[in-house]
């Protein structure tokens, strides 16, 4: 178990990390997700031992490690730019760590060979690393770290330099490798889709603080802050004001005369908060939770009326831009035979409908002050763990996540 306890780090006047606390379980595939410059690399470097935290402590299995130099931790890092040794062959790069630990040469040979075949680089073992393609270098970097059997493997955007096809292939391989070796992986990325696909849990970072930690489902379905909601997938924001707050339903006055209702999520993981009447709030709705209709839905649905401004066909989904009185909603509809037949076109007057269960309640410029963290269902994360690899691939290919903001 890796425990990061109130760690802060500043460079000069810039506070890059502010009071970060995290607990990462043994054997977990844990992702640090956040926009460029939010401090992901800085945090990873503290874990690797390349920098010292300004304040706070890092413990690994009960032992304080933030004071140990990098070469005395049983952690290994896959660097963003790989940092392979250009003067050494593939084999010697992979053997480097074992040689430093004075492992017997016969054992080195067998472990290196085993690792090279695991990453499918055995055929190129004696090549100079400078002659390898990006994907091959990436595998060597991975093998060089993994051959040491690190207790924790730190990966700093290892896939960011690869093209899409290779990246997806490497994601699958990485996940398969992690499931097999059962090492703890801490994976830095700014690609939300990658984080959702690979991780057991994700920490979403924003400007030096952690906004939310949770399983991919929790993060996507129950974002705690508008930032998280916006960063993972895209959301529409509809401003309103609390009219009535009951345990099973909240009534919100919105941009039209029609009231909006908010209900607890269908799985019951997210009970309704208690908010005083008159509080200005913001309802976030994901584009794929909307339905686009030609006539007004029944009262059990929320609805806003508007005009279609733009229709973007995107393969698996079609994106509609619907103009309301003073804002534009983005709606993603799957391209099933049914929706295709409806035949919307630009300028059509339509209704945008969504279920009261699909509302994410936030404050006007931040999280709801009263919202408590959603309860974690262990069964949920276990199900995620046991998804076979093929399915993970299918899920991603299906493109369940809407892009853009």
């Amino acid at each position, binding site marked *: 178990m890796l425990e990061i306890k109130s760690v802060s780090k500043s460079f000069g006047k810039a506070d890059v990390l502010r009071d970060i606390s995290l607990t990462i379980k043994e054997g977990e595939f844990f992702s640090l997700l956040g926009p460029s410059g939010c401090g992901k690399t800085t945090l990873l470097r503290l874990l*690797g031992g*390349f920098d010292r935290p300004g304040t706070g402590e890092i413990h690994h299995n009960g032992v304080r490690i933030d004071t140990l130099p*990098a070469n005395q931790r049983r952690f290994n890092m896959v660097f963003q730019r790989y*940092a*392979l040794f*250009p003067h050494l062959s593939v084999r010697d790069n992979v053997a*480097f760590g074992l040689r*430093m630990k004075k492992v017997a040469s016969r054992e080195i040979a067998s472990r290196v060979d085993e690792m090279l075949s695991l990453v499918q680089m055995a055929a190129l073992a004696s090549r*100079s690393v400078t002659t390898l393609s990006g994907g091959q270098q990436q595998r060597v970097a991975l093998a060089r770290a993994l051959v040491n059997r690190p207790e924790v493997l730190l990966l700093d955007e290892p896939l960011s330099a690869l093209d899409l096809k290779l990246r997806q292939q490497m994601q699958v391989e990485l996940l398969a490798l992690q499931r097999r070796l059962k090492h703890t992986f801490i994976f830095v990325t700014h690609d939300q889709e990658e984080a959702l696909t690979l991780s057991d849990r994700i920490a979403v970072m924003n400007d030096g603080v952690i906004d939310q930690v949770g399983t991919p489902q929790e993060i996507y379905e129950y974002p705690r802050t508008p930032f998280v909601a916006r960063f993972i997938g895209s959301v529409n924001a509809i401003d309103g004001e609390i009219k009535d707050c009951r345990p099973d339903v909240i009534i919100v006055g919105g941009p039209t005369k029609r009231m909006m209702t908010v209900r607890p999520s269908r799985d019951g993981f997210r009970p309704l908060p208690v908010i005083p009447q008159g509080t200005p709030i913001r309802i976030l709705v994901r584009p794929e939770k909307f339905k686009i209709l030609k006539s007004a839905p029944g009262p059990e649905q929320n609805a806003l009326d508007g005009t279609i401004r733009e229709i973007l066909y995107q393969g698996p989904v079609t994106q509609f831009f619907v103009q309301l009185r003073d804002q534009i909603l983005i709606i993603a509809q799957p391209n099933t035979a049914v929706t295709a037949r409806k035949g919307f076109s630009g300028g059509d007057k339509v209704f945008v409908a969504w279920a009261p269960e699909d509302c994410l309640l936030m404050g006007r410029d931040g999280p709801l002050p009263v919202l408590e963290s959603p309860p974690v269902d262990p069964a949920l994360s276990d199900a995620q763990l046991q998804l076979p690899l093929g399915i993970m691939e299918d899920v991603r290919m299906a493109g369940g996540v809407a892009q853009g903001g």
Partner: protein
Amino acid sequence: MSAWRAGWRKVAEKARPRLRRPPLLVLPAAGWFLWFLLAPLAIIFVYSFASKGVYGGVVMKFSLSNYVRSADLIYLHIFWNSIKLATLTAASCLLIGYPMAYVMATASARMRAFLLVMVVVPFWTNFVVRAYAVKVLLGEQGPVNALLASFGLISEPVVFANTAFAVWLGMVTNYLPFMVLPLYVSLEKFDFSLLEAARDLGASPVKVLFKVLVPLTKPGIVTGLVFTFTPALGEFVIPDLLGGAKTMLVGNLITEQFLKTRDWPFGSALSLLLILTVTGSLVLYLRMEARRQKAEEGA
């Protein structure tokens, strides 16, 4: 100046793709090469097989006597002295220059420019003046003695003049830039994240140095060694000025043949031997390096 600039280019060229050069542009280089290198070499080659006339001058009669004479124990001893001094100078420059170049390469851009200027500034003065400057520094009333005395380390001024230490300091002062500049070029291109990668893989600081930093900056190290060792081998002014002309060096010996004894043929033979020693060892090194690289790639 041009020596280190050429070497600098040599280091930089490794990374540069070969350009097709129009033949006319090659002319100046070819002319320079012919006039300043091949022609003098040809002359001393021919002279080295001639013999000395009775009143100086060169008598064109083929003989090997100059070479036979240079194998004399006295001359071998002089050669040996020169090689020792050059080796000591080159090695000292490397040990002092490497950390300097490292600091320069890792400094901020502004600091880097400042340090580069500081390294080059000595070239603005004549090198004999620099040698005298060292002499003054080490003088009995000089700042070094003053400093030592102020710390109470000495009661009497230390006499540095005409000591091996003074010669060493003079040589290092003079040749250090020739080491620092090629090292700096090498280190400036070095990817310092490799050091972190090595640390990450469990390498101790010493291992990081010898398994990663040194192998990857070897071009700079070799260039620096060549640039310091080669001129130091023929050096004689600094040892004369600071060492009191106590030890005879190849440089003195050759100068004497040309200027004092007027034995140009023997001087030519000695020069040629000196050149052969240097190029011979360089070629040998490059061969070994090429073979080693081939063996590595083939393995």
